[in-house]
């Protein structure tokens, strides 16, 4: 071969050799499906990871949304409330004692109630904030001021959930919103900080037309960015252990074969019965079935009454006192609203090709005295312990526990797999390494 040919060959071959370069470190992390490349979770305190009247980086990572992201294999940034030397940990820190007033909280006292956000140079994926009603996904000023507005600063930074969603250009979105559009009624019981409260206050229930209007605007925005989505139904707040049927209170304290019928517990609680025998605690017959099957007593009211009796006072649960109980009419307003919301959500999911997860099927199935107690375990509180609500609920009685978040995540993953043919692992925890519940 002549020198000229060698030289010409080199001119051809060397460039080809030079272009043979690869770098595996340039590859992005594995994602189970491209649909999950950018996942944004919208919602309220449940999605944010709020438990036991508080939120910190421990509860945040146990949110169903974070577990779902782990199953997806996608990067998921949380607005973490980390340790701060002066401000403690959390916003506020979760309670570890729920029977005292004020409740005891994890960690050192927080002078301001809220520590700072951990700084992040990335946009957050979990844009949910505690206290959110559906209208507040669109407008931070849509609702009357409340204590949870502080999260509009610390989690959203003054943006709205929808604004943050648009900035991240998500490929997949979960929407779990609506509980606060009815829960406010349940939580409006009279207390030292809310002396004019009225449990079951129907004025705090969002009207169906307003709910659907806001909800559809959120879905329109999701469609506009081209994302797929899973919509989660509004929990039936009359099932959660925060409030129990007044008929149960009645039957636990009274042997009344006429009024105490299945499925209510028929065995009198010896301690409650004992209190009644002392003449210090009574449950009015107006709390019994049939009206008592639609009358709800918030656990703080029940605990306050029983506590007073245990301390030597005389108290009575009287279901004719509207402020202290959720009356049958008020219960019906809440139930009707939830049913209306969920019918709309299910219709929209079907119409838009989104996945739909009905959380209420799982809620109803879990009422079994272990996972969701139909009646809170109040008695430990009389000895300085905690009121218990079952393994699925945290110490406030209305936010899911870490275990429940795992179940919710599994249910949502199932719904997504069914709708989109994806292969999210179910159960998630075990397949991926979840934080211990």
């Amino acid at each position, binding site marked *: 071969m002549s020198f000229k040919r060698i030289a010409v060959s080199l001119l051809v071959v060397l460039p080809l050799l*030079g272009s043979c370069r690869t770098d595996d470190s340039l590859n992005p992390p594995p994602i189970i499906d491209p649909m999950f490349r950018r996942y944004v979770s919208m919602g309220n305190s449940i999605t944010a990871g709020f438990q036991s009247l508080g939120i910190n980086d421990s509860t945040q990572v146990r949110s169903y949304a974070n577990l779902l992201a782990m199953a997806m294999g996608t990067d998921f940034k949380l607005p973490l409330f980390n340790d701060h030397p002066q401000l403690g940990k959390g916003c506020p820190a979760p309670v570890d004692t729920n029977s005292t007033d004020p409740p005891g909280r994890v960690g050192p006292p927080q002078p301001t109630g809220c520590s700072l956000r951990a700084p992040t*140079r990335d946009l957050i994926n979990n844009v949910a904030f505690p206290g959110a009603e559906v209208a507040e996904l669109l407008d931070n000023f849509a609702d009357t001021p409340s204590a949870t507005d502080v999260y509009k600063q610390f989690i959203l*930074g003054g943006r709205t959930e929808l604004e943050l969603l648009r900035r991240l250009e998500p490929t997949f979105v979960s929407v779990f919103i609506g509980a606060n559009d009815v829960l406010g009624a349940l939580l409006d019981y009279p207390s030292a900080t809310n002396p004019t409260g009225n449990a079951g206050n129907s004025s705090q229930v969002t009207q169906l037309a307003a709910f659907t209007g806001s909800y559809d605007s959120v879905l329109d925005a999701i469609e506009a960015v081209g994302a797929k989505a899973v919509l989660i139904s509004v929990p039936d707040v009359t099932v959660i252990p925060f409030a129990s049927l007044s008929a149960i209170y009645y039957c636990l304290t009274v042997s009344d074969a006429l009024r105490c019928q299945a499925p209510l517990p028929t065995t009198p609680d010896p301690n409650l019965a004992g209190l009644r025998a002392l003449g210090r605690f009574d449950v009015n017959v107006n709390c019994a079935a049939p009206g008592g099957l639609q009358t709800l007593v918030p656990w703080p009211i029940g605990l306050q009454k029983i506590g007073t009796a245990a301390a030597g006072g005389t108290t009575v649960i009287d279901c004719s006192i509207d402020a202290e109980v959720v009356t049958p009419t008020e219960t019906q307003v809440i139930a009707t609203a939830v049913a209306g919301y969920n019918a709309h959500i299910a219709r929209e999911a079907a119409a838009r090709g989104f996945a739909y997860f009905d959380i209420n099927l799982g809620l109803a199935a879990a009422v079994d005295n272990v996972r969701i107690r139909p009646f809170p375990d109040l008695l430990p509180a009389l000895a300085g312990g905690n009121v218990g609500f079952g393994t699925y609920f945290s110490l406030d009685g209305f936010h899911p526990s870490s275990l429940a978040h795992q179940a919710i995540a599994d249910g949502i993953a199932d719904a997504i797999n069914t709708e989109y043919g994806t292969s999210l692992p179910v159960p998630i925890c075990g397949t991926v390494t979840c934080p211990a519940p």
Partner: protein
Amino acid sequence: MRRFHVWLAVGGLAAFLGSPASLRAQGFSVNEHGTCAMGRAGTGVAAPCDDGSAMFFNPAGVASVPRGRTQISVGGVFIAPHGDFTQDATGLSSDLNKKVFPVPALFLTHGFTDRFAAGLGVFAPYGLTTDWPKDALGRFSSFKSVIRNIYVQPTVAAKLGKYVKVGGGFDVNFLHLELNQRVDLAEQATTTPGVTFANLGIPAGTDFAEGKVTGSKTGFGFHLGLTVQPTDQLSFGARYLSRQRIDDINGDAEFKQVNTNILIPPGSPLIAALGVPAGTPMDAILAPQFQSGKLIDQGGATGLRLPEQLTLGVAFRPTDKLHLLFDYGMQNWEVWDTIVLDFDSLGQRVLPQDFKRTHSWRFGGEYSVGSSSVVRAGFLTHSAAAPDDNVTATLPEGGRTEFTVGYGTRLGGSGHVDLAYQYIDQADRRGRSREAGTPNDGVYTFKAHLFGATFSWNF
């Protein structure tokens, strides 16, 4: 707390003063100053092209201009870059603006005697334009950077005996900078020590200011060259372009407010701290910073170092028609070790750069076709100047492989035209979209097509 102690992310500003993004080559050096040489991968230190570009490739080559001949060469390269940055966490990406950038060059030579010639060259051996959209992911590092170094080089060259030529020039460098970046409110400090706006929930990537720095200065240096041609078939060459140290580049820093459109939400601790009602625009709170605070228009100063270049090469003619060339080049980008920025109001910021020496290997060849035309081809590869932790939107640089082809032909009796095409294939490289000190958060890609044309006239 009405007056925020905003510490502007001058790191980013410094980044585009200090870590220029090359569209072209090692660091931000430019090697395409003659289309003839471009067609053969920039080789020519041992046998420069006969178009005046020897003033850049090897001043000694100017000595080849015959006595009494005057030559003017005017040419330019049009660069069409394509690049993007893809963020790891989100998969979101930003593309470089699709523009074509011209880089002109002008050379004038005259042979005074059989042994002595001189010339004047105007070219830009260092320069860049990096132009991203204003909403690009790397906008807080920079979204537009222009660094122009126009060298005017009077050159003299002489033949020393039969085999040796030497040449040298004095470089007057007209430097101009224009550097732009956005500033992220989330990164700024509040009056509470250790607390940033991000700690208060302000989302990352909240643009609230746009900074523009401009500056000009004249620098000086020199250029030396040597060729040795022991036979008609073989020649060797070497060139040395001196380092330039340009201090006290006084410029202007302009800042304009970018509306965040954030309203202070109900429940915000800022309501009590600032004494304003919920719903107050955050922009109204920040506005005084642009009127009497640290973000007023102000002066600034910095210094730049342009590295020395050393190139060694060999050229060989195995036949009358074929000419093969090989060049090795070194550029000492280690001079980019630290950048110091002094702003009148924002104070001083020192940024480590830690650039590395670069090395290039160039292979070129040309083949005569007929009596008046020549075809060219070449290949080159070189290493990157920017270290792994300083690959930025300003300088999304990496090692490159480049391919060239060219064609030259005579135009009538005294004219000549050269045309060339070059493709730049840069290896994808991890880099960061944020200011100095932040971790790499994505991958930069870069390719470019270059088209060159040079017209030469002999008188």
